């Protein structure tokens, strides 16, 4: 069997007793790139955080399985070691911890004790990833995300993705705040990982990212659910026509999760 499978079934998620996700169903397999699109406030980021286990989000119903294992029973770090990765929209700043030290710890967290990545191998891999993402080598010695520009933070997330090599990655608005050059570089990094062992869920507000990363499946979220799925042509139609035609088709007036449909 090639790659891992992430199955999200009837996922209901609340934050502070307010239901945001109202039954999301998605299956991502190794080798597949899925895009989740939708207007603001429809639950896209909630989906990403809930899968990874952010403590603020409470799963009230449904299941998330990774290769049949119950992800919802796992701690955040166990989910990571099981093969999940979340590229964050707003990565935290960690003062005093260099990007390089953090990367090495993250890689070693997935390896057995006594089987840590050799230092020289690590440095070689990091240097080549930095080059590939056109990141200044100084970043490795800078404190994690501290004083980084928006673009640097996003590149740093992709750097981590490339180094950690998860089975399934969820990228939460990895394109927000990027200029066109940075967007191209970030896309190049993600595309490099494309193979049958890697599955990716790309959450994006804009279609423009999908000009550089061609998804296999496109999902549209509204009111806390996936309301439409299709091929790459769906994204193109959304780019050309916006979301109104979907709302019309489905009889939705307010697309945010505020409304009980």
């Amino acid at each position, binding site marked *: 069997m090639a790659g891992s499978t992430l199955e999200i079934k009837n996922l209901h998620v609340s934050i502070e007793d307010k239901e945001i996700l109202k039954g999301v169903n998605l299956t991502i397999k190794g080798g597949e790139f899925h895009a989740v699109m939708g207007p603001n406030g429809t639950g896209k980021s909630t989906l990403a955080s809930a899968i*990874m*286990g*952010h*403590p*603020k989000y409470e799963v009230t119903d449904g299941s998330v399985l990774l290769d049949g294992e119950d992800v919802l029973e796992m*701690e*955040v*770090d166990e*989910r*990571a*070691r099981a093969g999940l*990765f*979340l590229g*964050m929209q707003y*990565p*935290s700043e*960690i*003062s*005093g*911890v260099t990007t390089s030290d*953090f990367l090495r*710890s*993250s890689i070693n*967290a*997935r390896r057995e004790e006594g089987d840590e990545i050799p230092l020289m191998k690590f440095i070689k891999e990091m240097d080549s990833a930095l080059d590939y993402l056109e990141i200044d080598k100084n970043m490795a010695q800078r*404190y994690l995300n501290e004083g980084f520009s928006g673009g640097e933070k996003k590149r740093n997330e992709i750097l*981590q993705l490339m180094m*950690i090599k998860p089975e399934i990655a969820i990228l939460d608005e990895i394109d927000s705040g990027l200029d066109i050059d940075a967007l191209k570089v970030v896309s190049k990094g993600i595309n490099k990982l494309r193979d049958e062992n890697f599955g990716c869920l790309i959450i994006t507000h804009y279609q423009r990212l999908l000009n550089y990363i061609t998804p296999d499946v496109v999902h549209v979220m509204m009111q806390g659910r996936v309301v439409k799925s299709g091929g790459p042509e769906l994204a193109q139609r959304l780019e050309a026509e916006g979301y109104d035609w979907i709302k019309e088709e489905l009889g939705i007036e307010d697309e945010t999760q505020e409304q009980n449909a």
Partner: protein
Amino acid sequence: MAKNMPEMEEYKYGFHDKDVSVFRSGKGLTPEIVKEISRMKEEPQWMLDYRLKALEHFYSRPMPQWGGDLSELNFDEIVYYVKPSERQGKTWDEVPDEIKQTFDKLGIPEAEQKYLAGVSAQYESEVVYHSLKEDLEEMGIVFKDTDTALKENEELFKEYFGKVIPATDNKFAALNSAVWSGGSFIYVPKGVKATTPLQAYFRINSENMGQFERTLIIVDEGASVHYVEGCTAPVYTTNSLHSAVVEIFVKKDGYCRYTTIQNWANNVYNLVTKRATCDANATMEWIDGNIGSKLTMKYPAVLLRGEGARGNTLSIAIAGKGQLQDAGAKMHHLAPNTSSTIVSKSISKQGGKVSYRGMVHFGRKADGARSNIECDTLIMDNESTSDTIPYNEVYNNNISLEHEAKVSKVSEEQLFYLMSRGLTEEEATEMIVMGFIEPFTKELPMEYAVEMNRLIKFEMEGSIG
């Protein structure tokens, strides 16, 4: 998230060897004991007179009523002097095996091989092993234990001893002045720059024994030195007292850095008076780490009395269960264009208390002086506390003073971020804490930074709240 609360392991350096001391004073403090100490050390009369006068002052001063609770400190229960062996070991071969074993457990020989320029290791009250690399001697640097310096460099000693911290300064300075023993004496001649740090290890090894070392450092014009002192102590059930006095003189254009990491066991009262004076364009830096002790009260001070003098204090304090770290800094701006920075980092956990207590004084002559104070606290749980108590005295309008204080907790977002990369909650917390103190550890010599990181990791075990 899982809340693992493993029990703190036994204090890591909590071994203690068989007592090999030859002489120890009884408990309690009398003029007879002070006379006996002075007689055994074959001191000149002036030192005995000085000790006895200091003792009177010690008797007459009331216990401080501020800072920490000293009510359980019983001066009658303390042994004031222990002489570990008949004479000082001048070479490693002459050092008794049992003492060597203690040093082995602390990893001293390796550290020495790699980095030490000279070692003055204090075992109980007397310096037993003292080596000085030839290049230091060639440069004319004097680095010896304070008792030997009194014998061999009496004139120099007398000129500076007690001049920046008089016996009457405070109750504990008076106590130290009465019963002091051991410590380091350093003289760096004009224009000489010591390229490697000078280091000494201190250690309390006897139950109920107070340690009263006395350090005197004189950095002559244009000279520079970095002195490093590290402490560990074994665990005992009754209270121990460490009350040191450190006096430093930095002459015109001189530079001195004094690095301490104290890791006393959690029943030690650590009451230390440290003060330096800086002449024109001289620089004094206190790098001060407080991890152990039951109660620490320590406020390294700099008297900036020459134009353009600089004083820096960079400190870290970590308080766990039953601990109070009342630490800080004092900067006295007494001349024009003097400058100072104070960076205080503190961590409280498992009900520990940390206080930053600092004083910045700008005298009438301090035209153009400036001071920058930064206090950062990381509170690990809801039982732990932190206080910031800054005093400012300003007698000159043409000065600049900035104070920044920040209290933070390990945030949910930071933990989530690090854990989403596979680090456990404990590893993630540790990483955030290590990052927090990194501005301190990066200033330490390599082997100390390694040791410091090990200590912090050990300290932080089971601190996730």
